């Protein structure tokens, strides 16, 4: 198919019953770390490692892939395009060193025991992973 597309990759990090999310200055919801793969030069796992480093100074070990999702329009602009979202369950190797790296403004650990309270204030893809049982 022809047209605009984005491939994004990022980690799902769960520690001590809490999910790591971050927030930048573009969206008003918390989202998983991660972002767009570098076209032509990077694979999905490399992008996952790079983005978590860029956003929160995190270093991770990838454990296994989680459910992918394809969006057929940009949820913000409604532009027709393919957005392929890939995520991996991952372990954070440097918890003490993570920090928001601009434009990331905030890092938060969401308690999975209170998932019903916050599941509507996270990104649609995070909600999808909750529905699939990948975040629990």
């Amino acid at each position, binding site marked *: *198919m*022809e047209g605009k*597309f984005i491939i994004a990759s990022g980690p799902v990090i769960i520690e001590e019953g809490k999910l790591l999310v971050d927030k930048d200055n573009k969206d008003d919801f918390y989202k998983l770390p991660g972002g767009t793969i570098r*076209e032509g030069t990077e694979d999905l796992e490399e992008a996952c490692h790079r983005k978590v480093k860029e956003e929160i100074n995190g270093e991770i070990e990838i454990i296994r*892939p989680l459910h992918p999702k394809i969006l057929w329009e940009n949820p913000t602009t409604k532009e027709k395009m*393919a957005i392929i979202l890939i995520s991996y369950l991952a372990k954070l190797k440097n918890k003490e060193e993570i920090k928001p790296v601009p434009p990331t403004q905030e890092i938060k650990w969401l308690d999975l025991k209170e998932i019903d309270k916050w599941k509507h204030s996270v990104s649609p893809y995070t909600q999808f992973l909750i529905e699939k049982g990948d975040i629990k």
Partner: protein
Amino acid sequence: MARIAIRSDAVVLKDGKILLEDGRLIGNWIKVGEDAEEVCRETATKMGMDIELIKPLHPTVRWGTNEKGEKCTVVNLSYLAKLKGEEDGG
């Protein structure tokens, strides 16, 4: 205009063997608006099989050019699956 092809496949394992149809996994190329998991299930149904997807497997992305020399990106999504009513896929 950028070109992308997205394929969704089910990896069905049984008795230490992998199920292939004409040398390919059970799946198809995804068209605009389609859901990756649904494509797997529908393809299997058309082949007379009823499958249950168990878990996602490692996705891949490949960068290249097609026969016209156009840049083309190929994404493969795949799922471990089992034939319904049978043991887990392995």
